[in-house]
């Protein structure tokens, strides 16, 4: 009996020690979860930041909806979402929201004989494809946009995100703004009821579905297109200009954003005017508590974000994301000092740090 209890005691002490050590090393890491859309740039920043400061980032790309859930459940220090929350939702949960990065969503296709960047689509055609009204690649409407392409009479096989996703929000928001029927019957959200097509999990699931099925079409975040050399399409924008998806056209759309007059940074960048504006552009947002339970963890996270604003531009541009302009960064800094406070009522982040 004595021996038994001694063993228990010993293993309990050992367990506690292990837990302590693990706890200490975890405290140094920033925890966050949410959008898959900015995941490539967040992970690149995390690498650079870890080299510079030794502080790591544990970011789970579980989708924007999941990010909103996780921050509300207080399991992470920050949540990330491509769908901005409305002011009343933020107030109800006691959250602050700020934009971190901007980028583009790009349609990808799998049509025999069609090379990357050759096919041209416009918003209305894209909406009709996803409504199931255009069902063949040699449809008159697609032919009209592509007089020089030889299009087969293959069935169109649309693919979309099966999980709740900010990429889906940007895509459906765009289709809703260019096609009234899409807006009425489907609408814009992180997940919707598609009348046709197949669901895949994450960018990889959508790209996989497109590549597996001849005649496939899908939508993914641009860095994913570039890294995997997918067959992207060009798009006709609001001004009627046909554009390649590049950082230039994302920037042009982003330049339209009126951050100063948007309450809680509620800005959606799809279907922006301007000759060079890529039509499916969006910002990705960070959600944090105004009065975090763990002020130290939030301060560490804010230092990381401040670093990313100040030094992350090159990393972001190398992945074709658009960094936030200086004026917006200054506004965000002010938001932090005005809103995010510790238990003592003082801001947990100051510009001098």
């Amino acid at each position, binding site marked *: 009996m004595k021996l038994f209890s001694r063993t228990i005691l010993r293993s309990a002490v050992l367990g506690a020690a292990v837990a302590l050590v693990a706890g200490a090393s975890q405290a140094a890491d920033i925890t966050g979860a949410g959008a898959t859309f900015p995941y490539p740039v967040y992970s690149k920043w995390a690498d650079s930041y870890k080299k510079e400061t030794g502080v790591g980032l544990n970011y789970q790309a579980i989708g924007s909806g999941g990010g909103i859930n996780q921050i509300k459940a207080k399991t992470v220090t920050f949540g990330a979402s491509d769908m901005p929350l409305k002011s009343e939702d933020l107030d109800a949960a006691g959250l602050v929201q700020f934009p971190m990065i901007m980028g583009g969503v790009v349609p990808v296709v799998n049509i025999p004989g069609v090379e990357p960047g050759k096919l041209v689509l416009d918003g209305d055609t894209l909406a009709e494809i996803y409504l199931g009204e255009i069902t063949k690649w040699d449809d008159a409407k697609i032919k009209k946009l592509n007089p020089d392409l030889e299009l087969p009479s293959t069935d169109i096989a649309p693919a979309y995100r099966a999980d709740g996703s900010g990429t889906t929000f940007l895509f459906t928001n765009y289709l809703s703004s260019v096609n009234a029927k899409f807006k009425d019957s489907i609408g814009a*959200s992180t997940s919707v009821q598609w009348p046709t097509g197949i669901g895949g999990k994450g960018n990889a699931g959508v790209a996989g579905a497109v590549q597996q099925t001849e005649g496939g079409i899908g939508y993914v975040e641009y860095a994913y297109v570039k890294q995997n050399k997918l067959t992207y399409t060009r798009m006709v924008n609001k001004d009627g200009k046909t554009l390649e998806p590049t950082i230039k056209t994302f920037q042009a759309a982003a330049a339209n954003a009126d951050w100063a007059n948007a309450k809680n940074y509620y800005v959606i960048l799809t279907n922006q005017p301007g000759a060079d504006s890529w039509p499916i552009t969006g910002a990705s947002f960070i959600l944090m508590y105004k009065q975090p339970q763990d002020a130290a963890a939030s301060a560490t996270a804010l230092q990381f974000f401040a670093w990313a604003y100040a030094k992350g531009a090159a990393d972001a541009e190398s992945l074709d994301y658009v960094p936030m302009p200086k004026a917006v960064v200054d506004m965000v800094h002010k938001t932090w000092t005005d809103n995010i406070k510790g238990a003592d009522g003082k801001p947990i982040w100051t510009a001098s740090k």
Partner: protein
Amino acid sequence: MVDATSQSIGMRIGARVARRQRMADKGFRLTTQFFAVLVLVLLGGAIVSLTVGALPALRAFGLGFFVDPTWQPPKEIFGGLAPIYGTLVTSVIAMIIAVPVSFGIAIFLTELCPPMLRRPFGIAIELLAGIPSIIYGIWGFLVLGPVLQHTILPFLKATLGQLPGIGFLFSGVIYGQGIFTAGVVLAIMILPFITAITRDVFETVPPLLKESAYGLGATTWEVLWKVVLPYSRAGVVGGVMLGLGRALGETMAVAFVVGSAIKINASLLAPGTTISATIANLANSNPSQLLNSALLALGLALFVITFIVLSLAKLQLMRLQRKAGG
């Protein structure tokens, strides 16, 4: 109890030991009883929390939730019919494929197989039952889906799809993933379960009966059809029901190959979804309280469906045991 003056030391010790053993027995009984009750508490807790979680959705949409195919998150309108339909149809396809094959295997193993091969076959089937479902899922996604997409599915579309009346079941774009593919993967998964139970049940048929039938000049087919099956009918039905129960609730493998479209398509080749796949896809990835509640309501529906099927299975198996006992 123990009288030290009149009883020997040995008896005293004996009584003490007996008392201690009684105590130990009692403690042991209470402990095991506690564990058993714990199971009931867990079951009750699961039902209660599912129901409570599902209440907001049921309050918003009423019982119509279970027969409404609309699923529109932007408008906060949810109906569970599409996943319920997908769950039932994938399971039915799985049963149509798995039951005859399982019966074939079971009959071969019990009646026709050379005794030397019986063990290897039996072990192989049990191993098949032990493969984790995620492996069936990834295999279905990477291997079976593309193979079906380029072989059997176009063939079905070109043949059955052209028939009047049922042609619509095999029409549309062929994705490789969909209700039919999910049914095929499920069939492979439940095959070993049904086979194992059917084999065991067939073995309960007294050799005397079979040998008498053979002695009267019956063929193997007649013995099976007129002696073995009628004798073991209840058990066979129970085994089939157990397989069905597993098919209904299977999550990972189905989520990989069903195509995750929350919509009822007339065509079996088209993507669809099941209750468990819908929950797996959306449970942690949406901010809507009502959607989460709708998912729990779907969970409740699955719980009820599975409960009914498994109860029927148990009932059938119990009937068989009574027969075998009496």
